[in-house]
């Protein structure tokens, strides 16, 4: 473990892998074209929900099972984890969507309007029925990225601002930029809006099921809320369409009319790196280990992927679950 390992990409995956390798006593260099966490990494635009059970509605089983470890991992890094669960609601017209969501997910119970009024008084003004996923959590993703980086700097990790291919052992966590080496990797565009809504107080992530415009809202404190996120099969980064913003805002307005008075603070878009099954992969090619394809589960699954990569590096776990065996790159 004496030779320094270079991690390419200081987004969510790179930072988590560095954290796990440091814990194993490795010497780590983090190399990224950007000086610090910011809008060039798609994790900058994340929601920060640690919601393995809700994600299970459309994600594969490993996301639900392994994602349950995420909240503890983030707590252990000193990141503030809000363990307040998730509430899932529908508009009156789409009530049956809630029944279907309940059938296809675990870890929830139906809450009455009285209980909803205690959990989220503002939501209860307009909704009588909700599914409560009490074991889910959320974090502030931008704060978490900054905190991990600061801690790594204190731990002696060298940050190099560079896009060059390094020599020696490399762990490649470049996300979509690694398409040059991983042809199956594709981008899935997501768009989000950040609002300041002093008239709507929410304590936990809310998901609105809607046949056309599904929405989640994640509170960031001080009346700031993140609205997300579209999911479009496009690799376009940075451009947000009027239509997408209208859909997100209309859905929020339908959830609670007081969103009409909110201030739009930020609109953003990026493309999530994903493999065809939308599950992460760890791929070994010569001296390089690739960890990629976190899709919409960066904050949920990076800790687990990082632990798997560290196990692979130290030899403690030569066959982690996300290791892609039949890769023909």
């Amino acid at each position: 473990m004496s030779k320094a390992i270079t991690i390419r990409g200081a987004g969510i995956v790179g930072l988590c892998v560095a954290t796990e390798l440091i814990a194993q006593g490795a010497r780590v260099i983090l190399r990224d074209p950007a000086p610090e966490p910011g809008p060039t990494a798609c994790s900058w635009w994340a929601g920060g929900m640690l919601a393995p059970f809700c994600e299970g509605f459309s994600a594969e089983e490993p996301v639900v099972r392994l994602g349950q470890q995420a909240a503890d991992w983030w707590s252990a890094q000193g990141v503030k984890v809000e363990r307040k669960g998730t509430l899932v609601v529908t508009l009156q017209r789409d009530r049956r969507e809630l029944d279907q969501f309940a059938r296809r997910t675990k870890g929830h119970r139906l809450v009455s309007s009285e209980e909803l009024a205690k959990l989220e008084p503002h939501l209860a003004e307009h909704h009588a029925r909700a599914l409560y996923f009490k074991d889910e959590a959320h974090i502030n993703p931008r704060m978490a990225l900054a905190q991990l980086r600061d801690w790594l700097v204190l731990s002696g990790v060298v940050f190099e601002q560079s896009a060059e291919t390094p020599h020696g052992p490399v762990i490649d966590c470049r996300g979509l930029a690694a398409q040059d080496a991983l042809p199956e990797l594709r981008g899935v565009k997501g768009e989000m809006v950040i609002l300041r809504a002093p008239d709507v107080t929410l304590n936990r992530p809310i998901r609105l099921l809607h046949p056309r415009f599904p929405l989640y809202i994640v509170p960031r404190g001080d009346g700031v809320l993140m609205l997300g996120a579209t999911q479009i099969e496009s690799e376009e980064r940075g451009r947000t369409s009027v239509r997408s913003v209208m859909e997100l805002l209309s859905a929020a307005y339908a959830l609670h009319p007081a969103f009409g008075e909110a201030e739009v603070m930020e609109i953003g878009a990026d493309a999530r790196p994903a493999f065809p099954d939308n599950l992460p992969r760890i791929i070994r090619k010569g001296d390089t280990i690739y960890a990629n394809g976190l899709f919409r589960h960066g904050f949920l699954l990076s800790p687990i992927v990082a632990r798997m990569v560290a196990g692979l590096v130290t030899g403690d776990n030569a066959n982690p679950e996300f290791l892609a065996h039949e890769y023909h790159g």
Partner: protein
Amino acid sequence: MPVFYETEIASRLMLGTAQYPSPAILAQAFRRSGAGIATVSVRRESGGDRAGQAFWDMIRELGVHVLPNTAGCHSVREAVTTAQMAREIFDTNWIKLEVIGHADTLQPDPFGLVEAARILSEDGFQVFPYCTEDLVLCERLVEAGCRVLMPWGAPIGTGLGLNNIYGLRSLRAHFPDLPLVIDAGLGLPSQAAHAMELGYDAVLLNTAVAKAGDPAMMAEGFARALEAGRLAFEADPMEPRDMAAPSTPVLGRAFT
């Protein structure tokens, strides 16, 4: 098997490619059902610099015929531009033409549809128009150059099935030799079987499969229902009648 613009397709199932949990599950649905045509939206996925390329490449790798569509277009101009873009991207003259006339019900705009169908047919496109079961509209579409008609069963994404059996039956009777495809509104395989029993040539689905708990299994369910319904149609089913008729004669049965 159905023939669209001189191309015979080995399946009566056409599948849309939106809303699946992942491209891997989308591919499984195609494999397990044997669907012969994939419809693809080019509009929303396009963006700048063909940003949808990676997804489109995966659709091509399914090895089925690709039918690009103009989903989400609300005007003739938009639909025509999107069709031209689709022809360039997928190198095909096929276009599933959608001109939406009503944002809430996603009902086709019959007037815009005929106009766009005429423009595109004259430009060498082979148009698959998403229409209602209105007979006069369908006649106009054929006059405009369409050699396939794709009437809805019910509004897109509702899963309500075949809403106007009379209308669909009279359309079939009126156009005995034209390929007819039920496009939109199906939720269950039994509804697809019914379309086959009416003599329709194929069905096009998306939500019913993509939003099922197990999309690949549901796709197979539809494929089998289509086979059953088509066999029933070709077998010339009995006519319903009011008089009960025992399948075994009872007259003269000695001891019961």
